[in-house]
């Protein structure tokens, strides 16, 4: 192996533990088996009534239950499961004593409808407003809802359970959040501030209002039947993304520290990059410059040329605009080399895990490197003739993969990319 510093003289950041939960299952083993078999985790929602909704399917994680139920509670549980798996693999520190900071990508937290309805019923009137709800909110009856619905509550819980050090950071860069969490961990290790960092992305927020919100923005697929076929990245008949739940966790370490303790190195976070788009709240700049710049910054950060990327784990949401924009910008960055790069979207099977997606897909990218096998983009029956990616359609493909670019783009002009490699570059 090479020296413990990268081309730019910074500590090399490696991954020594990974965990994942999606609608396909809990853990890397199940997820990988199902992902490479081309199975879909998308199903008709049963957690709450779907009457009156335009989109009635999602990648819910129904095999995990929390009592009393809340999206925030589920989000926390998913993060906990993924983290436990990552820590077990990394075998770092001692139980409940992780030797580094926590960076948590998480959906914004708010009081949810079941609790709001409970509060409303406590008012004891049939015509009332928030001023009446205020009068019954205090006095200890709903104390646990304060903690549950604080933005910092999930990170605080994880920090306590896993013994991470310092002030845990909860962050949101919308659909790029998971990638940003990893980037913050990479930066901390490169600064020499920490030898290890726990980076987690989690999202358990399939609830009525969340579905309605994305519906009202016309972002979701409405191809409800069959639900497994709804998410169609890069297809001509794609019509939106499918909301989903999941979590991905990674233990990052400096190469030096991982080697010193004899840890098994699963891969390298060779580069990270981000560049903000100031064009519109939900749409990308038509010239694609911010996304192009984001990918180029990431290549430069990794010290790699476009020709050295041999797989792209696409953002690939299956919205008409994203996939087109992603192709156009990727084509500019990779030029003549693009046809040689197999591209795939995990979201065809697990859906869009929103705040978790960047972390979940980073885990899948590393599994791709480990197994030298690229998971398919399912539901790829009618290719969009204007998207000339070499899409790994419908069946997994064995391939020599040494460097993967994983892209994440989100509302608010958020663009983030990661480059993951098997060995230090």
């Amino acid at each position: 192996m090479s020296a413990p510093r990268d081309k730019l003289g910074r500590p090399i950041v490696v991954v020594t533990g990974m965990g994942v939960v999606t609608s396909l299952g809990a853990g890397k083993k199940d997820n990988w088996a199902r992902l490479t078999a081309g199975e879909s985790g998308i199903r008709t929602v049963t957690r709450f009534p779907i009457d009156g909704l335009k989109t009635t399917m999602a990648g819910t994680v129904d095999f995990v239950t929390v009592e009393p139920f809340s999206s925030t509670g589920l989000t926390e549980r998913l993060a906990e499961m993924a983290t436990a798996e990552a820590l077990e693999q990394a075998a770092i520190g001692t139980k409940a004593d992780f030797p580094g900071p926590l960076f948590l990508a998480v959906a914004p937290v708010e009081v949810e409808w079941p609790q709001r309805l409970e509060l409303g019923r406590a008012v004891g009137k049939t015509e009332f407003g928030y001023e009446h709800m205020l009068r019954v909110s205090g006095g200890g009856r709903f104390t646990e809802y304060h903690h549950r619905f604080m933005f910092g509550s999930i990170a605080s819980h994880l920090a306590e359970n896993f013994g991470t050090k310092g002030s845990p950071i909860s962050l949101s860069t919308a659909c790029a959040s998971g990638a940003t969490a990893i980037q913050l961990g990479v930066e901390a290790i490169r600064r020499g501030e920490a030898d290890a960092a726990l980076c987690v992305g989690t999202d358990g927020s399939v609830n009525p209002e969340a579905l309605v919100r994305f519906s009202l923005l016309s972002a979701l697929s409405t191809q409800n039947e069959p639900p497994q076929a709804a998410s169609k990245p890069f297809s001509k008949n794609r019509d939106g993304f499918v909301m989903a739940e999941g979590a991905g966790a990674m233990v990052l370490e400096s190469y030096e520290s991982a080697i010193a303790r004899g840890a098994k190195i699963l891969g390298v976070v060779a580069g990270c990059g981000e560049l903000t788009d100031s064009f519109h709240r939900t749409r990308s700049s038509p010239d694609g410059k911010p996304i192009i710049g984001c990918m180029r910054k990431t290549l430069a950060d990794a010290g790699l040329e476009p020709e050295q990327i041999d797989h792209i784990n696409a953002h690939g949401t299956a919205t008409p605009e994203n996939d087109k924009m992603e192709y156009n910008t990727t084509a500019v960055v990779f030029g003549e080399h693009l046809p040689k790069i197999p591209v795939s979207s995990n979201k065809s099977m697990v859906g869009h895990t929103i705040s978790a997606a960047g972390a979940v897909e980073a885990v899948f990218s590393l599994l791709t490197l480990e197994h030298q096998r690229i998971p398919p983009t399912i539901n790829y029956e009618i290719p969009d003739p204007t998207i000339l990616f070499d899409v790994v359609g419908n069946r997994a493909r064995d391939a020599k993969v040494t460097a993967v670019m994983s892209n994440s783009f989100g509302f608010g002009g958020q663009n983030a990319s990661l480059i993951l490699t098997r060995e230090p570059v």
Partner: protein
Amino acid sequence: MTEQKSAGAKEVWITGIGIVSSLGEGLDAHWDALNAKKINVDDKRFAPYIVHPLAPVTFDAQIPKKGDQRQMEAWQRIGTYAAGLALDSAGVKGNKEILGRMDMIVAAGGGERDIAVDAAILSADAKGNSSPGFLNERLMNDLRPTLFLAQLSNLLAGNIAIVHGVCGTSRTFMGEEAASIDAARIALARIEAGQSDIALVGAAHNGERSDLLVLYEFGDFNLTEKFSPVWQRDDRSGFALGSAGCFLVLEAREHAEARGAKPYAKLTKVVADLAQRKQPGAVTKSLEALWPKLGVGDSGTLITGATGAEPVTSEEKVFLRQHPGFAIRATGTMFGHTLETQFPLGLALAALSISRGALFPPNDPTGLEVEKAGSPDQIVVVGAGHWQGEGMALVEAIK
């Protein structure tokens, strides 16, 4: 974990400050208000709850397009406005070259509800109208399609990018008071390490929200009935929510000098921790553990974001009394509790005081805050969140 600086860490200057609050907008207005011991509270609108309402602001001055203003809820307008003031103050407004590579870390809450929609749904539910699809149908029909964008935490940063063109990197930290302590900590660490040259850091809060009052009422955190300064709430503890936006431009000294920027002060340290507050005294202990990392002497000046809520305020008082040489100022008395905005506000007032060569007067009948003459060359900024998160910063004069 960030207190150990590597050799060759870059000096970080505060070159821009933007504040809008219940006391007004801009640095002069705030300096005058602080010196006049002005407090602006409204105890009628949400009675018996007390809030510090935003002073009248003409948003057009920083958000010229009405279309942009319409796309935002109040917290985003407040923040976008304050960010614009900070960019103006740093002399980088409209400078596309710098703004295009400026890093941004925003500390945000989010989620202003459509109060009328919520109330109508809840009232209908109370009347027994709860068919399976009822909630879905009402939300589908009644929610404004773009409201979501005004609720999303990262869309304050998104709006700042759109309105002001700050578009290097954009990160939004969440988690109440601690979020902005960490935002300042990470921005400082990145600039010191050469990972960033210039950054916009700050937060915004709309305290005039009944849905937020409900959230804090769950934990009995709201101040009711009668306003009193934060140190004088022994009989009736709690915080009065405040509306405010505050942003800072942090910049590597070399970068600032190269463009001829005038600094207000330098930001030397930001440290933070999360104590599990299960035992009495946990906050005192956490603050005491952070204190030596600042490397300050026995006397000086300290600006705290103490909330007035208990038990954290009493525990912070114990810590403060262990450092009797420090003149204390609590922003909570004048600004109310502005959650994520409280720590940047403390940093801003520290930098402002240093640049004006004086500390503003105490505003505290209990005597914990005392007069302090002379020009401060170091100010400690303290933040202890109402339920979790502790942090400190050191702002210093540039010599």
